[in-house]
């Protein structure tokens, strides 16, 4: 295996842009470091992706390079950092605004990655701060916006941009000052499929400048890589394990091949090819046929599946009739007919801004519909950002909130949702996965028959996503029903019995999951793209139940040789699970 220091030597030609030596970062009031003894050398023009499980210190590494740690976010930093090869190199003591001459950053949250009210002003700010002559600023702003494909948005209010547009403006602002180093902190993690595509294309356009060094931190490698698979990722990969230690560093295909199993077991989202390698132990992408034996074995025979009940359709728990929803008086989604039956999980699919959340709010009785009506018992609902729901000071109080007789329920919910270890902690201090489990537990404690969920797996790692998927499925299997919105078509195919596709202000398709996902026209019309693995199973499964069963089995399949096998134990410490 090639280590970081080897690479610095072998790449040779370029000057080191980033040199980290023995860096350990510890945040205040944390008992263990977030990064531990990190050595990293990145040469000019290199493209590096940093990966690892949630909490491995990926963002900390990037913030350290940008200077946000420790200058904006206090932390104790040991070791040395040198930025820039020629001229006056910068070190740990250099403040953020000084480093900004060398580097540009795109953060993950569109609402914070752009600061000013108008698009062109945001880009001009960078040049104004460098005292660029006013006459040169306008043309440069125009060129930078063109480069990321948003040349027509110069005069637009930033508050009115979509997430994908905002991130592209942020990218343009990051590179307009011609920095040598571009830091990307999960730039597409909060976007829908078309936003991810647009930002990816913009990053590729910007990265055509071969002298630009790119350091990418990404948690949804599967989404980011997209159809291009491993080729869609930067050429060099650095793996951090749960301890914040660098455990692998080398060419991306090689690193992912060697460490796929361990990364998968740690809950990382991997590009499909690497995920399949982790499960089958074989090398090759989906079309190579290398994994066909494994995958075909997951498709159930029809005889194995429980026969559909003959006793007629189950009871309708929630019904929407002629429903129109919108913002203010403006209709966003019209003419929705929906029957949610006991035992069903219904997925609502569509791009951002098509009214998915607004529809769920109306079904929950939280937003007044513009037309039509919703009948049925009062549903429960969990929101995309679990923090929006938090009202109490401890996890246990949070679950007890609004219950007439909390005692027995709280204990049961803490146990069922693995929250016993943090029952007395402040909900705001939990990890993302724990917050999501808490919001589910607190809602399920009310025992409402229908649960609505807005993007319930958003931002979660693979392991937490499996937990949430199981929780939703078990609500329906216990006689209730679930309606959830998602961008994750694999999740929808895994747990949903029915799918509703929305777009262009109306319902574009609805029906059994297998039928709708087989309808390529409807998905394309809604701007959705079926992941290759889901397409593979849709083509080979004859029913929704078979599709669910196969994807469920895939998501919970043990890694190849999970007991002891390590492909190259002699050359690497391996990723400790």
């Amino acid at each position, binding site marked *: 295996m090639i280590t970081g220091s080897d690479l610095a030597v072998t790449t040779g030609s370029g000057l080191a842009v980033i040199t980290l030596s023995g860096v350990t970062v510890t945040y205040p009031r944390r008992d263990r470091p977030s990064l531990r003894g990190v050595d990293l050398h990145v040469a000019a023009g290199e493209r590096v992706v940093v990966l690892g499980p949630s909490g491995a210190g990926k963002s900390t590494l990037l913030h350290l390079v940008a200077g946000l740690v420790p200058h*904006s976010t206090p932390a104790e930093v040991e070791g040395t950092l040198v930025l820039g090869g020629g001229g006056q190199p910068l070190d740990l003591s250099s403040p*953020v*605004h000084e480093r900004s001459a060398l580097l540009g950053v795109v953060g993950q949250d569109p609402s914070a990655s752009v600061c000013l*009210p108008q698009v062109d*002003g945001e880009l001009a700010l960078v040049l104004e701060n460098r005292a660029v002559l006013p006459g040169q600023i306008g043309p440069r702003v125009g060129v930078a916006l063109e480069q990321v494909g948003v040349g027509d948005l110069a005069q637009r209010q930033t508050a009115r941009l979509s997430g994908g547009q905002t991130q592209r403006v942020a990218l343009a602002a990051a590179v307009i000052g011609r920095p040598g180093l571009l830091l990307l902190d999960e730039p597409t993690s909060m976007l829908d499929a078309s936003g991810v595509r647009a930002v990816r294309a913009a990053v590729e356009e910007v990265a055509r400048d071969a002298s630009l060094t790119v350091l990418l931190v990404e948690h949804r490698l599967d989404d980011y890589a997209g159809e291009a698979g491993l080729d869609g990722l930067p050429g060099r990969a650095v793996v951090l394990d749960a301890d914040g230690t660098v455990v692998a560093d080398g060419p991306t295909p090689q690193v992912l091949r060697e460490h796929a199993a361990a990364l998968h077991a740690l809950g990382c989202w991997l590009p499909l090819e690497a995920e399949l390698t982790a499960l089958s132990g074989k090398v090759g992408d989906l079309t190579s046929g290398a994994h066909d034996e494994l995958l075909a074995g997951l498709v159930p025979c029809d005889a194995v599946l429980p026969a559909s009940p003959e006793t007629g359709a189950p009871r309708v728990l929630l019904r929407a009739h002629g429903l129109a929803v919108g913002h203010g008086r403006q209709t966003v989604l019209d003419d929705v007919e929906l029957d949610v039956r006991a035992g069903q999980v219904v997925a609502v699919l569509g791009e951002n801004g098509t009214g998915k959340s607004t529809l769920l709010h109306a079904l929950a009785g939280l937003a007044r519909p513009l037309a039509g009506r919703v009948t049925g018992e009062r549903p429960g609902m969990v929101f995309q950002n679990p923090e929006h729901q938090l*009202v109490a000071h401890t996890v246990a109080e949070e679950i007890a909130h609004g219950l007439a007789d909390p005692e027995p329920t709280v204990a049961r919910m803490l146990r069922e949702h693995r929250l016993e270890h943090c029952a007395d902690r402040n909900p705001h201090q939990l990890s993302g996965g724990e917050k999501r489990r808490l919001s589910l537990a607190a809602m399920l404690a*009310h025992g409402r028959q229908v649960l609505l969920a807005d993007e319930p797996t958003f931002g979660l790692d693979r392991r937490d996503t499996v937990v949430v998927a199981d929780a939703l499925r078990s609500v329906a299997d216990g006689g209730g029903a679930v309606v959830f919105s998602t961008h994750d078509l694999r999740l929808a195919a895994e747990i949903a019995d029915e799918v509703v596709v929305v777009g262009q202000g109306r319902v574009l398709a609805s029906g059994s999951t297998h039928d709708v996902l087989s309808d390529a026209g409807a998905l394309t019309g809604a701007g959705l793209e079926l992941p290759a693995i889901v397409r593979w199973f849709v083509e080979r499964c004859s029913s929704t139940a078979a599709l669910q069963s196969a994807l469920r089995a895939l998501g919970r399949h043990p890694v190849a040789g999970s007991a002891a096998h390590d492909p190259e134990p002699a050359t690497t410490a391996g990723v400790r699970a």
Partner: protein
Amino acid sequence: MSVLQPDALALASPLARRNPTVKLALLFVVSAVLLLVLDPVTPAVLYVLVAGAVLVGAGVRPRALLVAQLPFVAFALGVLLVNMLSRPGEVVWQGAGLRVTTEGIWVGAGLAGRTLLMGLLSVAFVATTDGVALVTSLHQHARLGAKVTFAVLAGYRLLQQMGAEWQTIRRAQSVRAPLGRRGRPRVGLRGHAASAFALLVGSVRRGDRVAGTLELRGLGDGERTTWRPVPLDRKDAVFAVVVLGVLGLVLVGASAAGVLEGPGALF
């Protein structure tokens, strides 16, 4: 309330083309002078003049102008009533346990007129001033520091997002609230406090990240340029002279006519 947000028509008006710092300074000066005027005639004359100027020079639709002044009208009415009923002096009407005095009407009308005039000036200022231009101009012409300037502008963007955020939090928290008699969730004061806290936590965190982004844009203490400076020219000087001149003329005229009264009218 469209007038409280600058619309395209108002922002294309002659008043909108005047320098925002000059307008703000004039607003302060005129308001300060008005604090010393306590008769109802002087503010009434000024009100008519300003209203005419705003309708002609600010591109604000009359209806929008009226609607935006409603809060000031309500406040002015309150001031008038309190003074009418509570100020000692010559009684003009008595009954139902209340009495109205001449002095009360006079002083009350003076204070109310002043309130309406300040309201009108403020509405005209807000309707014809672009927030970004104001802050940029304060940076250029009133020596507001670059860090403060851009922090304010970033705060403006945060504020734009806050309405939607508040609505989401209110909804998220009312899901678990018990239902009231009409079938609507009953949230109560503590519920609102919890929502406000959640909004605060979220905003502080986002503000922190935005501050980081501003620094990453290179915002520091060093030398900087301004891409599109807000103009400050002779027309602004003429505008200031005209406004202050008209104010002076009205005061002189009112004094000559014997209607001008200062704080002495209160005692």
